[in-house]
């Protein structure tokens, strides 16, 4: 048995291709038979991924979901930032530059509103939950942006590791919520055209959540949403530890 494990670990990426393929096949089947295609197969597959991640975390107590199970460690590579970003960029092929130019101003506005509003709301909740020092409030507010902005900000302003963990968790909750929720709210917020997708990406910010959510809604919208969302984390890392931290510091010296 030992040699099979070794073989699976050595060919981790291929194992990940196989397992993902099985998950996707199963999800398509569920979508067809149980929901009459009302819930897209890709949405079920992404949700199944999250369930697998939870199971993996429960079994091993690790932080990398299913990839903590040795035989499935290839998932870390397949689902890692390199492949994810490469695939996101590839979706831009055939996207309309004219649309991007036309939505430029609204896209930038959505980014600024998205970062600042998320931060303020997160900070207010932090205060409401009993945090009264500027570093903690700022870090939790930053966690409301994305799970990268939180720890980057927390490290910069010198927050405790417990608070940084909360900010990461908040970012992950947001990303999961956007992943699962996007297909369901799309209809109600007019998320059915490239312009709306760009604004949505700017407001939500989480690249993984937005991209996955849009993929489950309408794959044609992915490049537009991802385009703005990819600037969000950078903007958050720029504003939260500087301008926004100073603002919080004035109120809570």
């Amino acid at each position, binding site marked *: 048995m030992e040699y099979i494990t070794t073989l699976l670990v050595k060919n981790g990426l291929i194992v990940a*291709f196989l397992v993902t393929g099985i*998950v996707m096949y199963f999800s398509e089947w569920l979508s067809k038979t149980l929901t009459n295609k009302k819930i897209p197969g*890709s949405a079920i597959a992404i949700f199944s991924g999250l369930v697998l991640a939870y199971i993996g975390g429960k079994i091993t107590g690790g932080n990398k979901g299913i990839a903590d199970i040795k035989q499935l460690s290839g998932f870390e590579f397949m689902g890692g930032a390199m492949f994810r970003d490469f695939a996101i960029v590839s979706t831009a092929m055939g996207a309309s530059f004219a649309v*991007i130019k036309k939505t430029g101003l609204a896209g930038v506005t959505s980014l600024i509103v998205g970062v600042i509003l998320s931060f303020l709301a997160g900070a207010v*909740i932090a205060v409401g939950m009993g945090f009264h020092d500027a570093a903690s409030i700022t870090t939790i507010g930053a966690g409301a942006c994305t799970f990268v902005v939180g720890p980057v900000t927390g490290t910069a302003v010198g927050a405790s590791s417990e608070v940084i963990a909360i*900010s990461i968790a908040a970012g992950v909750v947001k990303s*999961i919520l956007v992943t699962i929720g996007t297909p369901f709210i799309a209809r109600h*917020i007019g998320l059915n055209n490239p312009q709306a997708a760009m604004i949505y990406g700017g407001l939500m910010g989480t690249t993984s959540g937005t*991209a996955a959510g849009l993929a489950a809604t309408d794959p044609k919208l992915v490049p537009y949403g991802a385009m703005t969302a990819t600037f969000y984390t*950078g903007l958050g890392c720029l504003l939260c530890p500087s301008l926004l931290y100073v603002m919080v510091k004035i109120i809570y010296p």
Partner: protein
Amino acid sequence: MLLRGVALLAGCFIIGQITGETLGRWLHIDANVGGVGFAMLLLILTQNELEKKGLFHKEMEEGVNFWSKMYIPIIVAMSSIQNVRVAISSGVVAVLVGVIPMLICLATMPYISKLSKKEP
């Protein structure tokens, strides 16, 4: 030809990422600022240029399309390596901070959408 498409994609990807990292350094923040976004813009622009000059081969497109079709499986793999256990178990603060600000942002969407329609 197929590989030329993949190479084009890879080239745009690398240049975009370098741009994002460099921008991050200029701004003194430890993050990649829009690397993916720059790469996407670059890919769209090069594709347009090559098409104009008649240098864009159908098979090149297929090299890129393969990756865009791999996109959802990769996202599924990405979901399965998230720290869902901690997200669920780390308590009320994380859940509230993850959910409420997102809903507030969502509520502003109709107003910002109007902004894009005003433009010509």
